[in-house]
């Protein structure tokens, strides 16, 4: 039922509005700034779509795991490691052309992300250690490793910045606005969205195929619904858990193509910026269906870009966005029954009247 998430969303925004009022600002004003900044211009759209791309990847990552009954909170760490993979692949392989580099980076990112999900997956499957905690810990560990590498090993000499050198031009992938220019019209000049968006959409489609059209998807969903039944049917929990987490981590890792290769064109410290966590909300709002996820990702892209504009043009602190996102996750994710049950009762009553 599509109505539930919408109402939940409305509630989340209503409370956010109260918070904004509480800190003495005008919600209407804030909303206007957000909408104009994020959707009011092709430039705004360009940036909104950039964030959307991130969230599609992480949202899909969470969703795939969720279908197998696994709760992957590790998107953050997996995307971080994916960034490492993308960076190494862009820095140390002499790519002839960006198209090849793009493919290479996508593979590298996915590989690193997948490997980072492998250990928690194995621990869950073999030793039953709770994947939620292990993935959280792996987020921290990934961050520590990255900081170490960036400030000690990968940082070019004399640079202050704990970041890698810039990637060679051959690995610079065109932004959507550049594609637009090639096709001879001006759209969102210098905005951040880039060709990775298409990869994201492709992945969304592939995930749909995987989940509802392949044997693996069938087994994965069965396992997610009932482990005893899965074992009865000869589906190996260990195998499914590990494969699922590899796919999930791979998707999260692939996000790096967008933010590392597409945007900063070098690897910086906090490149992921919570996308891993927002993936949870995106997946939930999207009811773990690729189409829903793309839409939810668009919403969160809007939130983030709008929030940026907010801190750009108003005195509302940037933390407001964290609050709004928290509320959205709370209402769409944890409190959805609060909305759904009354709705269902309502419709049930309707049906009884009719029938």
């Amino acid at each position, binding site marked *: 039922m599509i109505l539930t998430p919408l109402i939940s969303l409305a509630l989340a925004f209503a409370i956010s509005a109260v918070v904004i009022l509480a800190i003495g600002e005008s919600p209407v004003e804030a909303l206007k700034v957000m909408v104009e900044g994020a959707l009011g211009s092709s430039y705004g759209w360009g940036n909104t779509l950039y964030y959307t791309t991130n969230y599609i990847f992480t949202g899909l990552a969470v969703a795939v795991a969720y279908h197998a009954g696994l709760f992957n909170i590790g998107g953050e760490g997996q995307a971080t490691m994916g960034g490492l993979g993308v960076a190494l692949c862009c820095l140390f392989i002499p790519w002839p052309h960006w198209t090849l580099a793009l493919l290479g980076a996508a593979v590298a990112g996915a590989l690193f992300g997948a490997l980072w999900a492998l250990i928690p997956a194995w621990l869950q499957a073999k030793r039953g250690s709770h994947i939620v905690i292990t993935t959280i810990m792996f987020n921290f560990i990934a961050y520590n490793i990255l900081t170490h590498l960036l400030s000690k090993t990968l940082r070019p000499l004399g640079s*202050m910045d704990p970041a890698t050198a*810039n990637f060679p031009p051959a690995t610079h992938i065109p932004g959507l606005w550049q594609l637009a220019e090639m096709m001879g019209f001006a759209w969102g000049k210098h905005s951040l969205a880039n060709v990775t968006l298409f990869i994201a959409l492709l992945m969304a489609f592939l995930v749909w195929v995987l989940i509802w059209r392949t044997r693996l998807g069938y087994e994965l969903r069965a396992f997610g619904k009932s482990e005893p039944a899965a074992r009865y049917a000869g589906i190996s929990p260990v195998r499914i858990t590990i494969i699922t987490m590899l796919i999930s981590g791979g998707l999260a890792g692939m996000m790096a193509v967008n933010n590392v290769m597409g945007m900063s064109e070098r690897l910086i410290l906090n490149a992921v910026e919570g996308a891993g966590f927002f993936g949870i909300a995106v997946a939930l709002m999207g009811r773990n269906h690729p189409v829903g996820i793309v839409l939810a990702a668009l919403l969160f892209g809007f939130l983030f870009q709008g929030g940026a504009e907010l801190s750009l043009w108003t005195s509302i602190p940037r933390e407001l966005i964290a609050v709004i996102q928290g509320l959205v996750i709370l209402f769409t994710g944890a409190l959805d029954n609060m909305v759904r049950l009354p709705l269902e009762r309502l419709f049930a009553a309707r049906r009884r009247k009719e029938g």
Partner: protein
Amino acid sequence: DPALIFDLGGKFDKSFNEAAYMGAERWKAETGGSYKELEMQSEAQREQALRRLAETGANPIVMTGFAFAEVLKKVGPDYPDTKFAIIDAEVDLPNVQSIVFAEPEGSYLAGVLAAMASKSGTVGFIGGMDVPLIHKFECGYVQGVKAQNPDAKVIINYTGTTPAAWNDPVKGGELVKAQKSQGADVIYAAAGGTGIGVLQTAADESILSIGVDSNQNHLHPGKVLTSMVKRVDNSVFDAFTAGADLEPGLKVMDLASDGVALAMDENNQPLITPEMQAAVDKASAAIKAGEIKPHDYMTDNTCPVQ
């Protein structure tokens, strides 16, 4: 109007960004002009922010923090008529003024003072997140200490390897206690929000601390030996005053140009003996004259003395 962009630390980091904010406020107060300010929220926004400001005709645009360097290289050329000033990094563009500070020099002096103020002959350094910039402070400091007292011991701690390390006063406090137990009685904190905890605990434990970036002497009068101030405020003030005809090129803010200095005011005045003052003056003179060249960690990622 001019514009000022703060780095992710946020303008109230009690040190670097806050200093820049002070400068801008001072300019506002003295000239009655108005300026546009904004805080970064995410890496992705840096470019966005620069472009949006440039397009709204802000000039000059001052940004704090090396993290802007790469973006500025990209954006600068697109707005030739806009002047940019970047603090803590070098960007070689016709319309960019690069302002870099000689932290090693200031920290060197802090080291000299610390060595003299220490009775135990052991002093401490507490860095925030373990990143190169902070090693720059550390290295200058150690050199100063050793120069003043070759067999002095310097205990070095970093708070962490994640941004949380900038905001962990609890751990900062524990580090002070740990260092104190090893004999340290003067501790230099270059750790943003964590530094608050360091200075606090040092005061609680009645040992001396040294603040950083902006003048923190007033936080615990008589307990903070001094502060190694980077006059970010001055450079912002100057940039704002210069306005549209801000002259491009590299601007090194060192002792000579009062870009870095030790804060001496009524709060730490009782702690500073004449001979300390003398030693500091002597050292700074030597540095200005180029007789002493505190090694810059960034040049080779190593520090000559340990």
